[in-house]
C-alpha cells in the first residue's frame, strides 16, 4: 500500500462519513432534490 492509497482511503472514508452525517442530520426531513421549499422541512 503506497502513500496514494492511504490518501485515497482517507478521502473516501471522509466523504462517506460526511455523506452519512449529512443524511442522519436531515433524517425525517425532506431530502428531495427538487423540493420547492414549500414544506416545513425545507426551511433553509
Amino acid at each position, binding site marked *: 500500500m503506497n502513500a*496514494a492509497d492511504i490518501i485515497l482511503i482517507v478521502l473516501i472514508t471522509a466523504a462517506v462519513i460526511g455523506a452519512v452525517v449529512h443524511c442522519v442530520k436531515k433524517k425525517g426531513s425532506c*431530502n*428531495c*432534490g427538487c423540493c*420547492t421549499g414549500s414544506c416545513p422541512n425545507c426551511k433553509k
Partner: protein
Amino acid sequence: MTLKELKIGGSAVITEVGGEGALRQHFLDMGVIPGAEVKVLKYAPLGDPMELLIHGYSLSLRLADAAQIKVTELDKDIAAEVEEPHRKHREHPGLGEGGRYHEAHPEKNEPLPDDTKLTFALVGNQNSGKTTLFNRLTGSNQHVGNFPGVTVDRKDGPIKGHPNTLVTDLPGIYSMSPYSSEEVVSRSFVLDEKPRGIINIVDATNIERNLYLTMQLLEMGVPMVVALNMMDEVTANGGSVDINEMEAMLGVPVVPISAAKNSGVDELIDHAEHVARYQEEPMRQDFCDENDCGGAVHRCIHGIAHLIEDHAKRAGLPVRFAANKVIEGDELVLKQLELDENELETVGHIVLQMEKERGLDRSAAIADMRFSFIQKVCRETVKKPRESIGHIRSRRIDKLLTGKFTAIPMFVLIMGLVFWLTFGVIGAGLQGLLETGIDKLIALADKAMKEAEVNEVIHSLLVDGVFAGVGSVLSFLPIIVTLFFFLSLLEDSGYIARVAFFMDKALRKIGLSGRSIVPMLIGFGCTVPAVMATRTLPSERDRKMTILLTPFMSCTAKLPIYAFFAAAFFPDKSTPIVVALYLLGIITAIFAACLYKGTVFKGDAVPFVMELPNYRLPAAKNVLQLLWDKAKDFLQRAFSVILIATVAVWFLQKFDMNLHMVKNSEESILAAFSGVVAPVFKPLGLGDWRIVTSLVTGFMAKESVVSTLEVLFTGDVTTAMTTLGAASLLVFSLLYTPCVAAVAAVKRELGKKWALTLVIWQCALAWVIALIVRLVGLLMGGV
C-alpha cells in the same frame, strides 16, 4: 334571476346568497354578500366556471354555485365607476410611534422588558405579497409564487438587524372562518400562540376584499400594524389612499409599502416593533353602527358580547371576536366557550330577532356589517386606481390563453414547448456538454491513479463505483434545472392559476377540482412539495385523492432513468419517448382518478372558488434563487444519498458472503439477494438481477437507478435486455412506488395506512401496465 343567468359584460347587484355551511360562509367572506355589485367577465373555455368582478377583484365561481346566488340586473357598468374620496385633511394620528399616542394614553407608557422576544404573525389574503415581505423582513429567500396558496405552512425568522424578534409567515387566508386546512394553520397561530403583534399585509390594489380580514384581526385585540402593500402600483395608476384618515378610522398604524421594491419596509418594522413593545392594542374593535339598518346587528353583537364575556375570558378568546363567531355559528368557537343551555338558548333568541329585524340571515348580516364599514372606510380614504396596466395586459393575454377556443390548444402548446426545450434543446444540449466534461475528468483521474499505481480495489471503488455512479447522476443536473426554470416561469407568471380555472370542468368529470391542477403540475418537479401543496384544497376528499394521484406525475428525479434508457435503446426517438412517458403518467392518473371516484372517494369535488392574479413578469432574482436552490439540493443529494448508495452497491457486488472479492459479480452478495426477487420481474423481461437491484435502490432515490446500473454494468446495458424489456422497464420506473421522501410526505399528510397502500398499489399497477406494454410489443412483433 340568478347570477348564472347573467351574460358576459352584464352587471348586477346580489340580493340573496343561497347554499349552506362552510362554502356559503366562504362566499360571504369573499365579499359575495347581498348588496354587493358584480360584473360577469367571462366563462372558462369549457363553459364553466365563470369569472366575476366583485369589490374590484376577479373571482372564479362554478355555475352550479352561481345558480344559488340571486341578483337584480343593473343598467350601469360597475367597472366604470370611480369615486373620489371625501378629503378631510386629518392630522397624523401618531399610532405605533412615541409622542401623541402615549401622551393621550399614559397607561401605555410601560414597554415590555428589552429581553422579551417580540413575536409577529404575518397575516394577509392569499397572493397579497406576504412571502415577499417576509423575505424583505428576514433577509431569507423563501419561494414566492404568483398563484393563491404558495405558502402552505408557517415559516419563521428574525427581522434582519432586530435579533430579539421572530416573524412567522402564515398561509394566506380570506377570513378567520377556516375553510381549508391552511386557513386553520393561520387562525390557530393567532389564537393559540398569541403573538405579541400582527403585521397585516393588505393588497392596496384590492383593498376592499383585503380589509375584511383586517377587521376580523382588529377584533382580536392584538397589537397590529397594517402594511398597505403594492402602493407603488396604486399611485402609478392614479389611485391614492389617505393614510392618516385610514389610520384614524381603523385605530391601528397604517404604513404604505411596496414589498417588491423594498420601500416603506423600515418604517413598517419601526411601527410593528413599537406596537408590540408597548402592547398598543387597536383603538377600535367596534365596527357596527347603531344607525345602520335600525341597529339590529349592533344590538345583537353587543348583547351577545355581554352574555358570553366571562366564557370568552375563561377560554382566552377576545370577546368581540368570540361574539361575532357565535353569531356566525362557528362550531370551534362555540365549543371553546362552553356556554350552558340557557345561554345557548338566549343567543339563539337574540340572533333570531336580529335576523328578523335585519332581513338577512346571521352569517350574511355579520358579513354585511363588515363590508358596510369597509365601504365607509374606502369612501373616506381611497381613490381607486384606474385599471392598472398589469390588469389591462392580463385581460389581453387572457383573451388568448383562456379564450374559449384557444385555451386548451395553448396549454398543450406551452407544455409541449416546455418539454421540447427541456429534453430536446436546452437541457439535453447542456447535459451533453456536462457529460463530456465528466467523462474527461474520470479518464484523467483513471490515468493518474494508474500512474500512481493505486491499489486495484481502491481504483475499482473510485472509477467503477463513485465516479461512474455519482458522475452519471450529476450529468442530469442541466435537464432538471431547465425543467424547473420553465415550471417556475409558468408559476410565477400567474399562468398556473389560469390552468386551474379552465381545467376545472374537465377535472370535475374525474372527481377533482380545478385547484388540484396546481399540486399536479408541481408534481412534475417533485412529489414532496406537490403533496404539501394539496393543503390549499378545501375538502378532505379532494386532498386525499389529489395526494394519491400526484405520484403519477413523473417527477424530475425520474428523468435520468428515461434519458439513460432512451439514449441506449431508442437513440433517434429520445424526446418522443420521454414525452410519451409523461403522457402515460397523466393517462394512468386519469384512470386511477376514475377508479377512486367510483370506489373509495365517491361523491363530487367541492366547488371551485379562486382568485385569479394578474400576469406578472417573473422576477429574475426569484427565478435564479429557485434554480440555485434546486441545483444545490441536487448536488447535495448526489454527494450524499447517491454516494452512499453507489459505495454500498459497489461493495455488495464486489464481495461474496465470505467477504472475498469476486471476479464474477454473479457470485456477489448482491446477486444472491436480488436473485430471490428477480423471478417476479421475469414476465416483464426484467429478470436480470442487476436491473432488479437498480429498481430496489430507486426506492431510496430515483436517480439511484441510473447510478446503480452504471456501477453494475461494466459493459453495455443493451446486452442485458431487449428493446421491449427497456420499454417495460421505463413504464415500470414511471409508475412504481415513489421514493422514500415522497412516501414520508404522504405518511405525514394521510397517515401510515395510506402511505403503505400507495406503495403496494403503485407497484402492482406498474407491474400490470409494464406487462401489458411488453405483451402488446410482443404481439406487434417486437423483441
